[in-house]
Protein backbone atom coordinates (compact mmCIF):
# COMPACT_ATOMS: atom_id res chain seq x y z
CA UNK A 1 0.00 0.00 0.00
CA UNK A 2 2.83 2.35 0.94
CA UNK A 3 4.49 1.70 -2.43
CA UNK A 4 1.25 2.51 -4.25
CA UNK A 5 1.24 5.85 -2.40
CA UNK A 6 4.80 6.47 -3.56
CA UNK A 7 3.79 5.77 -7.15
CA UNK A 8 0.85 8.13 -6.71
CA UNK A 9 3.21 10.79 -5.34
CA UNK A 10 5.58 10.31 -8.30
CA UNK A 11 2.69 10.80 -10.72
CA UNK A 12 1.65 14.01 -8.97
CA UNK A 13 5.25 15.15 -9.09
CA UNK A 14 5.34 14.44 -12.83
CA UNK A 15 2.19 16.51 -13.35
CA UNK A 16 3.60 19.47 -11.46
CA UNK A 17 6.96 19.18 -13.27
CA UNK A 18 5.07 19.46 -16.57
CA UNK A 19 2.86 22.28 -15.29
CA UNK A 20 5.50 24.56 -13.75
CA UNK A 21 7.02 25.73 -17.07
CA UNK A 22 3.49 26.58 -18.26
CA UNK A 23 2.59 28.46 -15.10
CA UNK A 24 3.98 31.78 -16.37
CA UNK A 25 1.62 31.74 -19.36
CA UNK A 26 -1.33 30.86 -17.18
CA UNK A 27 -0.37 33.62 -14.72
CA UNK A 28 -0.28 36.17 -17.56
CA UNK A 29 -3.75 34.98 -18.64
CA UNK A 30 -4.95 35.42 -15.08
CA UNK A 31 -3.61 39.00 -14.96
CA UNK A 32 -5.32 39.86 -18.26
CA UNK A 33 -8.64 38.50 -17.03
CA UNK A 34 -8.32 40.24 -13.69
CA UNK A 35 -7.38 43.62 -15.19
CA UNK A 36 -10.24 43.45 -17.71
CA UNK A 37 -12.76 42.60 -14.97
CA UNK A 38 -11.56 45.51 -12.85
CA UNK A 39 -11.46 47.91 -15.77
CA UNK A 40 -15.04 47.17 -16.74
CA UNK A 41 -16.64 46.94 -13.32
CA UNK A 42 -14.61 49.66 -11.56
CA UNK A 43 -14.50 52.28 -14.30
CA UNK A 44 -17.08 51.57 -17.01
CA UNK A 45 -20.10 50.05 -15.30
CA UNK A 46 -20.39 52.86 -12.67
CA UNK A 47 -21.10 55.19 -15.62
CA UNK A 48 -24.08 52.96 -16.38
CA UNK A 49 -25.29 53.28 -12.80
CA UNK A 50 -23.75 50.08 -11.43
CA UNK A 51 -21.41 51.27 -8.67
CA UNK A 52 -19.32 49.32 -6.10
CA UNK A 53 -19.50 46.16 -8.13
CA UNK A 54 -15.81 45.51 -8.95
CA UNK A 55 -14.94 43.70 -5.71
CA UNK A 56 -18.01 41.48 -5.97
CA UNK A 57 -17.06 40.56 -9.56
CA UNK A 58 -13.38 40.04 -8.75
CA UNK A 59 -14.27 37.53 -6.07
CA UNK A 60 -16.64 35.79 -8.48
CA UNK A 61 -13.90 35.62 -11.10
CA UNK A 62 -11.37 34.22 -8.61
CA UNK A 63 -13.84 31.54 -7.58
CA UNK A 64 -14.76 30.49 -11.10
CA UNK A 65 -11.51 30.80 -13.07
CA UNK A 66 -10.77 27.19 -12.12
CA UNK A 67 -14.17 26.23 -13.48
CA UNK A 68 -13.11 27.39 -16.94
CA UNK A 69 -10.06 25.16 -16.70
CA UNK A 70 -12.48 22.22 -16.85
CA UNK A 71 -12.79 22.64 -20.63
CA UNK A 72 -9.03 22.53 -21.03
CA UNK A 73 -8.74 19.51 -18.72
CA UNK A 74 -11.38 17.62 -20.69
CA UNK A 75 -9.75 18.56 -24.02
CA UNK A 76 -6.37 17.32 -22.78
CA UNK A 77 -7.91 14.07 -21.58
CA UNK A 78 -9.79 13.39 -24.80
CA UNK A 79 -6.82 14.40 -26.97
CA UNK A 80 -4.69 11.86 -25.13
CA UNK A 81 -7.29 9.13 -25.57
CA UNK A 82 -7.53 9.88 -29.29
CA UNK A 83 -3.78 10.32 -29.71
CA UNK A 84 -0.86 8.99 -27.72
CA UNK A 85 -3.01 7.26 -25.10
CA UNK A 86 -0.35 7.78 -22.45
CA UNK A 87 -3.15 7.07 -19.97
CA UNK A 88 -2.91 3.39 -20.89
CA UNK A 89 0.67 3.40 -19.58
CA UNK A 90 -0.36 4.92 -16.26
CA UNK A 91 -3.12 2.32 -15.95
CA UNK A 92 -0.51 -0.45 -15.87
CA UNK A 93 1.57 1.16 -13.11
CA UNK A 94 1.68 -0.41 -9.65
CA UNK A 95 -1.30 1.37 -8.13
CA UNK A 96 -5.06 0.80 -8.34
CA UNK A 97 -6.48 2.11 -11.60
CA UNK A 98 -9.02 4.32 -9.80
CA UNK A 99 -6.07 6.09 -8.18
CA UNK A 100 -4.82 7.14 -11.63
CA UNK A 101 -8.11 9.02 -12.13
CA UNK A 102 -7.97 10.53 -8.65
CA UNK A 103 -4.49 11.77 -9.50
CA UNK A 104 -5.76 13.41 -12.70
CA UNK A 105 -8.50 15.19 -10.72
CA UNK A 106 -6.06 16.31 -8.00
CA UNK A 107 -3.54 17.56 -10.52
CA UNK A 108 -6.26 19.50 -12.32
CA UNK A 109 -7.35 20.97 -8.99
CA UNK A 110 -3.85 21.88 -7.90
CA UNK A 111 -2.99 23.52 -11.21
CA UNK A 112 -6.20 25.56 -11.31
CA UNK A 113 -5.68 26.52 -7.67
CA UNK A 114 -2.21 27.93 -8.30
CA UNK A 115 -3.56 30.14 -11.11
CA UNK A 116 -6.82 31.18 -9.44
CA UNK A 117 -4.97 31.88 -6.19
CA UNK A 118 -3.26 34.84 -7.90
CA UNK A 119 -6.53 36.64 -8.61
CA UNK A 120 -7.20 38.07 -5.18
CA UNK A 121 -3.67 39.41 -4.53
CA UNK A 122 -3.68 41.03 -8.00
CA UNK A 123 -7.13 42.53 -7.39
CA UNK A 124 -6.08 43.85 -3.99
CA UNK A 125 -2.95 45.32 -5.51
CA UNK A 126 -4.92 47.11 -8.20
CA UNK A 127 -7.87 48.27 -6.08
CA UNK A 128 -5.91 48.98 -2.88
CA UNK A 129 -8.26 50.36 -0.20
CA UNK A 130 -11.28 49.95 -2.45
CA UNK A 131 -10.95 46.20 -1.84
CA UNK A 132 -11.46 45.94 1.94
CA UNK A 133 -10.41 42.69 3.56
CA UNK A 134 -11.60 43.55 7.09
CA UNK A 135 -14.32 40.89 7.08
CA UNK A 136 -12.17 38.22 5.43
CA UNK A 137 -11.55 34.93 7.20
CA UNK A 138 -8.40 33.46 5.68
CA UNK A 139 -9.08 30.00 7.13
CA UNK A 140 -12.59 29.86 5.71
CA UNK A 141 -11.38 31.18 2.38
CA UNK A 142 -8.69 28.49 2.20
CA UNK A 143 -11.25 25.75 2.93
CA UNK A 144 -13.89 26.79 0.41
CA UNK A 145 -11.37 27.76 -2.27
CA UNK A 146 -9.58 24.41 -2.02
CA UNK A 147 -12.87 22.51 -2.01
CA UNK A 148 -14.07 24.44 -5.05
CA UNK A 149 -11.00 23.46 -7.03
CA UNK A 150 -11.29 19.83 -5.95
CA UNK A 151 -14.83 19.94 -7.27
CA UNK A 152 -13.63 21.38 -10.59
CA UNK A 153 -10.94 18.67 -10.81
CA UNK A 154 -13.40 15.81 -10.33
CA UNK A 155 -16.02 17.52 -12.50
CA UNK A 156 -13.50 17.34 -15.37
CA UNK A 157 -13.56 13.55 -15.10
CA UNK A 158 -17.35 13.37 -15.12
CA UNK A 159 -17.60 15.64 -18.14
CA UNK A 160 -14.81 13.74 -19.94
CA UNK A 161 -16.96 10.60 -19.78
CA UNK A 162 -19.71 12.38 -21.72
CA UNK A 163 -17.40 13.58 -24.51
CA UNK A 164 -16.91 11.09 -27.31
CA UNK A 165 -14.30 12.98 -29.32
CA UNK A 166 -12.62 16.34 -29.72
CA UNK A 167 -15.20 17.17 -32.40
CA UNK A 168 -17.89 17.30 -29.71
CA UNK A 169 -15.90 19.49 -27.33
CA UNK A 170 -18.07 22.52 -28.08
CA UNK A 171 -20.90 20.63 -26.38
CA UNK A 172 -18.95 20.81 -23.12
CA UNK A 173 -18.92 24.56 -23.30
CA UNK A 174 -22.56 25.08 -24.30
CA UNK A 175 -24.18 22.26 -22.34
CA UNK A 176 -22.18 22.19 -19.10
CA UNK A 177 -19.86 25.12 -18.46
CA UNK A 178 -21.94 28.01 -19.76
CA UNK A 179 -25.33 27.17 -18.11
CA UNK A 180 -23.76 26.27 -14.77
CA UNK A 181 -21.67 29.42 -14.71
CA UNK A 182 -24.35 31.78 -16.05
CA UNK A 183 -26.90 30.58 -13.49
CA UNK A 184 -24.30 30.01 -10.78
CA UNK A 185 -24.38 33.54 -9.42
CA UNK A 186 -21.24 34.99 -10.95
CA UNK A 187 -23.01 38.33 -11.48
CA UNK A 188 -25.51 38.16 -8.60
CA UNK A 189 -25.84 36.71 -5.14
CA UNK A 190 -28.42 34.08 -4.28
CA UNK A 191 -30.36 36.55 -2.12
CA UNK A 192 -30.83 38.85 -5.13
CA UNK A 193 -32.22 35.94 -7.14
CA UNK A 194 -34.47 35.06 -4.20
CA UNK A 195 -35.92 38.58 -4.26
CA UNK A 196 -36.61 38.25 -7.98
CA UNK A 197 -38.16 34.79 -7.82
CA UNK A 198 -37.93 32.51 -4.74
CA UNK A 199 -38.94 29.40 -6.68
CA UNK A 200 -36.18 29.79 -9.24
CA UNK A 201 -33.78 30.60 -6.41
CA UNK A 202 -34.59 27.33 -4.65
CA UNK A 203 -34.22 25.33 -7.87
CA UNK A 204 -30.92 27.09 -8.45
CA UNK A 205 -29.58 25.62 -5.21
CA UNK A 206 -29.05 22.44 -7.23
CA UNK A 207 -26.26 24.27 -9.06
CA UNK A 208 -22.99 23.59 -7.21
CA UNK A 209 -21.50 26.87 -8.45
CA UNK A 210 -24.07 28.78 -6.39
CA UNK A 211 -22.67 27.21 -3.20
CA UNK A 212 -19.08 27.78 -4.28
CA UNK A 213 -19.62 31.45 -5.11
CA UNK A 214 -21.70 32.10 -2.01
CA UNK A 215 -19.13 30.35 0.18
CA UNK A 216 -16.18 32.23 -1.30
CA UNK A 217 -17.99 35.59 -1.01
CA UNK A 218 -19.05 34.82 2.57
CA UNK A 219 -15.44 34.01 3.49
CA UNK A 220 -14.14 37.32 2.06
CA UNK A 221 -16.97 39.83 2.48
CA UNK A 222 -18.55 38.39 5.62
CA UNK A 223 -21.57 36.19 6.18
CA UNK A 224 -24.28 38.83 5.81
CA UNK A 225 -26.22 38.59 2.55
CA UNK A 226 -24.90 35.15 1.58
CA UNK A 227 -25.81 31.50 2.19
CA UNK A 228 -24.41 30.06 5.46
CA UNK A 229 -20.71 29.40 4.96
CA UNK A 230 -20.55 25.97 6.60
CA UNK A 231 -23.59 24.83 4.67
CA UNK A 232 -21.74 25.85 1.50
CA UNK A 233 -18.75 23.77 2.65
CA UNK A 234 -20.98 20.74 3.34
CA UNK A 235 -22.80 20.97 0.00
CA UNK A 236 -19.62 21.47 -2.05
CA UNK A 237 -18.00 18.51 -0.24
CA UNK A 238 -21.02 16.38 -1.03
CA UNK A 239 -21.06 17.44 -4.67
CA UNK A 240 -17.32 16.74 -4.98
CA UNK A 241 -17.74 13.25 -3.54
CA UNK A 242 -20.72 12.44 -5.77
CA UNK A 243 -19.16 13.85 -8.94
CA UNK A 244 -15.85 12.09 -8.16
CA UNK A 245 -17.40 8.70 -7.47
CA UNK A 246 -19.69 8.74 -10.50
CA UNK A 247 -17.00 10.18 -12.79
CA UNK A 248 -14.37 7.61 -11.83
CA UNK A 249 -16.85 4.75 -12.01
CA UNK A 250 -18.03 5.74 -15.49
CA UNK A 251 -14.50 6.37 -16.75
CA UNK A 252 -13.38 2.96 -15.52
CA UNK A 253 -16.30 1.41 -17.34
CA UNK A 254 -15.62 3.39 -20.53
CA UNK A 255 -11.93 2.45 -20.54
CA UNK A 256 -12.61 -1.16 -19.49
CA UNK A 257 -10.47 -0.99 -16.37
CA UNK A 258 -9.59 -3.80 -13.96
Amino acid at each position, binding site marked *: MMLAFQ*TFGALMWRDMAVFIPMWKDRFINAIIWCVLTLLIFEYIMPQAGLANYAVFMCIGTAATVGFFEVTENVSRFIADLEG*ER*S*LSYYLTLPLPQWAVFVRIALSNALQALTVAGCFLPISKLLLQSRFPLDAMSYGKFFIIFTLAHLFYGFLSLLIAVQVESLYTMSNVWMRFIYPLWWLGGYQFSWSVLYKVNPYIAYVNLLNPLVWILEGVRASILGQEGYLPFWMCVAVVTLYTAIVGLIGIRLLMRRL*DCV
Partner: protein
Amino acid sequence: MNKKQLLNICGVTKKFNDGIREIHALKGVSLEIYEGEIFGLLGVNGAGKTTLSSIIATLNPPTTGDITRNGVSIYEDVVAYRRMIGFCPQKPNIDMMLTIEENLWFTGRYFCMSQELIKERVAYLLKRFGLDKYSGSKASILSGGYKQRFLLARTLMHNPQLVILDEPTVGLDPHVRRDIWEVIKSLRNDNVTVLLTTHYLDEAEQLADRVCVLDKGVIRLVDTPENLKNVHGQKNLEDVFVKLVTDCDQPGMC
Protein backbone atom coordinates in the same frame (compact mmCIF):
# COMPACT_ATOMS: atom_id res chain seq x y z
CA MET B 1 15.04 -24.67 -19.62
CA ASN B 2 13.69 -23.88 -16.16
CA LYS B 3 10.16 -25.32 -16.05
CA LYS B 4 8.89 -23.48 -12.97
CA GLN B 5 5.48 -22.04 -13.73
CA LEU B 6 5.24 -18.26 -13.59
CA LEU B 7 1.64 -17.70 -14.68
CA ASN B 8 -1.34 -19.92 -15.19
CA ILE B 9 -4.02 -18.52 -17.47
CA CYS B 10 -7.27 -20.39 -16.87
CA GLY B 11 -10.29 -20.19 -19.15
CA VAL B 12 -9.94 -16.51 -20.01
CA THR B 13 -12.72 -15.07 -22.14
CA LYS B 14 -13.23 -11.55 -23.35
CA LYS B 15 -16.37 -10.07 -24.84
CA PHE B 16 -16.67 -6.58 -26.28
CA ASN B 17 -19.66 -4.70 -27.43
CA ASP B 18 -18.84 -2.40 -30.33
CA GLY B 19 -22.29 -0.79 -30.16
CA ILE B 20 -23.70 -3.01 -32.90
CA ARG B 21 -22.83 -6.54 -31.89
CA GLU B 22 -21.04 -8.53 -29.24
CA ILE B 23 -17.53 -9.62 -30.18
CA HIS B 24 -15.97 -12.68 -28.52
CA ALA B 25 -12.29 -11.75 -28.70
CA LEU B 26 -11.14 -14.63 -26.49
CA LYS B 27 -13.06 -17.88 -26.05
CA GLY B 28 -11.68 -19.72 -23.02
CA VAL B 29 -7.92 -19.33 -23.34
CA SER B 30 -5.90 -21.56 -20.98
CA LEU B 31 -2.13 -21.81 -20.96
CA GLU B 32 0.90 -21.81 -18.71
CA ILE B 33 3.90 -19.53 -18.94
CA TYR B 34 7.16 -20.72 -17.41
CA GLU B 35 9.89 -18.73 -15.74
CA GLY B 36 12.73 -17.62 -17.98
CA GLU B 37 11.15 -18.65 -21.28
CA ILE B 38 10.34 -16.59 -24.33
CA PHE B 39 6.76 -17.40 -25.11
CA GLY B 40 5.57 -16.44 -28.58
CA LEU B 41 1.93 -15.57 -29.07
CA LEU B 42 1.13 -15.91 -32.76
CA GLY B 43 -1.94 -15.21 -34.78
CA VAL B 44 -3.34 -13.25 -37.69
CA ASN B 45 -4.76 -9.75 -37.18
CA GLY B 46 -7.84 -9.94 -34.97
CA ALA B 47 -6.86 -13.32 -33.48
CA GLY B 48 -6.98 -11.88 -29.95
CA LYS B 49 -3.24 -11.49 -29.28
CA THR B 50 -3.38 -7.87 -28.15
CA THR B 51 -6.50 -8.54 -26.09
CA LEU B 52 -4.75 -11.39 -24.28
CA SER B 53 -1.54 -9.44 -23.69
CA SER B 54 -3.56 -6.45 -22.38
CA ILE B 55 -5.32 -8.78 -19.94
CA ILE B 56 -2.04 -10.32 -18.79
CA ALA B 57 -0.67 -6.77 -18.37
CA THR B 58 -3.79 -5.99 -16.24
CA LEU B 59 -4.71 -3.09 -18.47
CA ASN B 60 -8.12 -4.68 -19.05
CA PRO B 61 -9.92 -7.39 -17.09
CA PRO B 62 -11.07 -10.72 -18.53
CA THR B 63 -14.83 -11.22 -18.87
CA THR B 64 -14.49 -14.62 -17.21
CA GLY B 65 -11.55 -16.78 -16.17
CA ASP B 66 -8.52 -16.00 -14.07
CA ILE B 67 -4.76 -15.64 -14.14
CA THR B 68 -2.89 -17.13 -11.21
CA ARG B 69 0.65 -16.85 -9.94
CA ASN B 70 1.81 -19.39 -7.38
CA GLY B 71 -1.79 -20.58 -7.20
CA VAL B 72 -3.14 -17.15 -6.24
CA SER B 73 -5.16 -14.91 -8.55
CA ILE B 74 -3.15 -11.89 -9.70
CA TYR B 75 -6.25 -9.79 -9.01
CA GLU B 76 -5.87 -10.52 -5.27
CA ASP B 77 -2.91 -8.13 -5.23
CA VAL B 78 -2.79 -6.50 -8.61
CA VAL B 79 -0.40 -3.77 -7.42
CA ALA B 80 2.25 -6.33 -6.39
CA TYR B 81 1.79 -8.14 -9.71
CA ARG B 82 2.23 -4.93 -11.70
CA ARG B 83 5.53 -4.31 -9.96
CA MET B 84 6.95 -7.50 -11.47
CA ILE B 85 5.77 -6.90 -15.05
CA GLY B 86 6.87 -4.58 -17.82
CA PHE B 87 4.38 -3.91 -20.61
CA CYS B 88 5.40 -2.64 -24.00
CA PRO B 89 2.18 -1.96 -25.94
CA GLN B 90 1.74 -2.08 -29.69
CA LYS B 91 0.93 1.62 -29.92
CA PRO B 92 3.56 3.93 -28.39
CA ASN B 93 1.93 5.45 -25.30
CA ILE B 94 4.79 7.78 -24.48
CA ASP B 95 4.51 10.82 -22.24
CA MET B 96 5.16 13.49 -24.86
CA MET B 97 5.41 16.27 -22.28
CA LEU B 98 8.65 14.85 -20.88
CA THR B 99 12.07 14.34 -22.43
CA ILE B 100 13.35 10.82 -23.06
CA GLU B 101 15.57 10.98 -19.98
CA GLU B 102 12.78 12.42 -17.82
CA ASN B 103 10.43 9.69 -19.03
CA LEU B 104 12.86 7.02 -17.87
CA TRP B 105 13.60 8.87 -14.67
CA PHE B 106 9.92 9.13 -13.77
CA THR B 107 9.39 5.47 -14.67
CA GLY B 108 11.97 4.67 -12.00
CA ARG B 109 10.05 6.84 -9.54
CA TYR B 110 6.75 5.18 -10.43
CA PHE B 111 8.31 1.83 -9.53
CA CYS B 112 9.78 3.25 -6.30
CA MET B 113 13.41 2.72 -7.30
CA SER B 114 16.18 4.48 -5.39
CA GLN B 115 17.80 7.61 -6.84
CA GLU B 116 21.13 5.83 -7.32
CA LEU B 117 19.55 2.88 -9.11
CA ILE B 118 17.49 5.19 -11.32
CA LYS B 119 20.60 7.11 -12.31
CA GLU B 120 22.46 3.93 -13.09
CA ARG B 121 19.59 2.33 -15.05
CA VAL B 122 18.82 5.50 -17.04
CA ALA B 123 22.47 5.82 -18.10
CA TYR B 124 22.65 2.13 -19.00
CA LEU B 125 19.39 2.02 -20.96
CA LEU B 126 20.03 5.26 -22.86
CA LYS B 127 23.36 3.81 -24.00
CA ARG B 128 22.07 0.28 -24.62
CA PHE B 129 19.27 1.49 -26.89
CA GLY B 130 21.25 4.24 -28.60
CA LEU B 131 19.01 6.90 -27.10
CA ASP B 132 21.73 8.94 -25.40
CA LYS B 133 21.87 11.48 -28.24
CA TYR B 134 18.13 12.12 -27.75
CA SER B 135 18.12 12.08 -23.95
CA GLY B 136 17.18 15.77 -23.66
CA SER B 137 14.63 15.71 -26.48
CA LYS B 138 10.89 15.27 -26.30
CA ALA B 139 9.69 11.88 -27.51
CA SER B 140 7.63 13.52 -30.27
CA ILE B 141 10.76 14.10 -32.38
CA LEU B 142 11.73 10.42 -32.38
CA SER B 143 11.29 8.24 -35.46
CA GLY B 144 9.18 5.07 -35.23
CA GLY B 145 12.25 2.91 -34.64
CA TYR B 146 13.58 5.09 -31.85
CA LYS B 147 10.15 5.32 -30.25
CA GLN B 148 10.09 1.53 -30.16
CA ARG B 149 13.59 1.43 -28.67
CA PHE B 150 12.48 3.91 -26.06
CA LEU B 151 9.38 1.85 -25.23
CA LEU B 152 11.59 -1.18 -24.68
CA ALA B 153 13.95 0.82 -22.50
CA ARG B 154 11.02 2.08 -20.42
CA THR B 155 9.62 -1.44 -20.13
CA LEU B 156 12.94 -2.73 -18.78
CA MET B 157 13.65 0.22 -16.50
CA HIS B 158 12.57 -1.49 -13.27
CA ASN B 159 14.04 -4.92 -14.12
CA PRO B 160 10.70 -6.71 -14.45
CA GLN B 161 10.39 -10.48 -14.04
CA LEU B 162 7.85 -10.73 -16.85
CA VAL B 163 8.12 -8.59 -19.97
CA ILE B 164 5.05 -8.38 -22.20
CA LEU B 165 5.93 -7.21 -25.70
CA ASP B 166 3.00 -6.58 -28.00
CA GLU B 167 4.23 -6.55 -31.61
CA PRO B 168 7.51 -4.82 -30.67
CA THR B 169 8.99 -4.85 -34.17
CA VAL B 170 5.97 -4.06 -36.31
CA GLY B 171 6.82 -1.60 -39.11
CA LEU B 172 10.51 -1.35 -38.21
CA ASP B 173 13.53 -1.48 -40.50
CA PRO B 174 15.28 -4.87 -40.62
CA HIS B 175 18.39 -3.67 -38.76
CA VAL B 176 16.28 -2.20 -35.95
CA ARG B 177 14.29 -5.45 -35.77
CA ARG B 178 17.52 -7.43 -35.44
CA ASP B 179 18.73 -5.10 -32.73
CA ILE B 180 15.50 -5.57 -30.78
CA TRP B 181 15.81 -9.33 -31.24
CA GLU B 182 19.23 -9.17 -29.59
CA VAL B 183 17.72 -7.34 -26.64
CA ILE B 184 15.00 -9.97 -26.30
CA LYS B 185 17.57 -12.78 -26.49
CA SER B 186 19.63 -11.10 -23.79
CA LEU B 187 16.58 -11.09 -21.51
CA ARG B 188 16.53 -14.87 -21.66
CA ASN B 189 20.10 -14.91 -20.34
CA ASP B 190 18.95 -12.79 -17.39
CA ASN B 191 16.17 -15.32 -16.68
CA VAL B 192 13.49 -12.76 -17.54
CA THR B 193 10.27 -14.26 -18.88
CA VAL B 194 9.11 -12.72 -22.14
CA LEU B 195 5.63 -12.89 -23.60
CA LEU B 196 6.16 -11.91 -27.22
CA THR B 197 3.12 -11.12 -29.32
CA THR B 198 3.91 -11.10 -32.99
CA HIS B 199 2.63 -11.98 -36.40
CA TYR B 200 6.15 -12.23 -37.83
CA LEU B 201 6.75 -15.96 -37.83
CA ASP B 202 10.48 -15.67 -38.50
CA GLU B 203 10.67 -13.58 -35.35
CA ALA B 204 8.91 -16.22 -33.29
CA GLU B 205 11.06 -18.96 -34.80
CA GLN B 206 14.24 -17.05 -34.00
CA LEU B 207 13.31 -16.05 -30.48
CA ALA B 208 10.59 -18.17 -28.89
CA ASP B 209 11.18 -21.25 -26.75
CA ARG B 210 7.50 -22.12 -27.16
CA VAL B 211 4.82 -20.68 -29.37
CA CYS B 212 1.09 -20.52 -29.05
CA VAL B 213 -1.09 -20.11 -32.13
CA LEU B 214 -4.19 -18.10 -31.39
CA ASP B 215 -6.95 -18.08 -34.00
CA LYS B 216 -10.29 -16.28 -33.63
CA GLY B 217 -9.90 -16.19 -29.85
CA VAL B 218 -9.08 -19.88 -29.50
CA ILE B 219 -5.72 -21.54 -28.87
CA ARG B 220 -4.95 -23.89 -31.74
CA LEU B 221 -1.74 -25.27 -30.28
CA VAL B 222 1.15 -24.65 -27.91
CA ASP B 223 4.53 -26.24 -28.58
CA THR B 224 8.19 -25.58 -29.32
CA PRO B 225 8.95 -24.35 -32.85
CA GLU B 226 11.12 -27.45 -33.46
CA ASN B 227 8.35 -29.89 -32.44
CA LEU B 228 5.82 -28.07 -34.57
CA LYS B 229 8.01 -28.29 -37.65
CA ASN B 230 8.66 -32.01 -37.04
CA VAL B 231 5.03 -32.92 -36.29
CA HIS B 232 3.65 -31.03 -39.28
CA GLY B 233 6.52 -31.97 -41.57
CA GLN B 234 7.30 -28.41 -42.54
CA LYS B 235 10.60 -26.59 -43.02
CA ASN B 236 9.74 -23.47 -41.11
CA LEU B 237 7.18 -22.06 -38.72
CA GLU B 238 5.54 -19.99 -41.42
CA ASP B 239 4.58 -23.14 -43.36
CA VAL B 240 3.23 -24.71 -40.16
CA PHE B 241 1.19 -21.63 -39.44
CA VAL B 242 -0.26 -21.41 -42.95
CA LYS B 243 -1.17 -25.13 -42.83
CA LEU B 244 -2.88 -24.71 -39.45
CA VAL B 245 -4.86 -21.64 -40.41
CA THR B 246 -5.87 -23.16 -43.76
CA ASP B 247 -6.97 -26.39 -42.06
CA CYS B 248 -8.99 -24.42 -39.51
CA ASP B 249 -10.77 -22.50 -42.25
CA GLN B 250 -12.21 -25.76 -43.57
CA PRO B 251 -15.47 -26.97 -41.99
CA GLY B 252 -15.09 -29.55 -39.23
CA MET B 253 -11.30 -29.30 -39.07
CA CYS B 254 -10.98 -27.26 -35.84
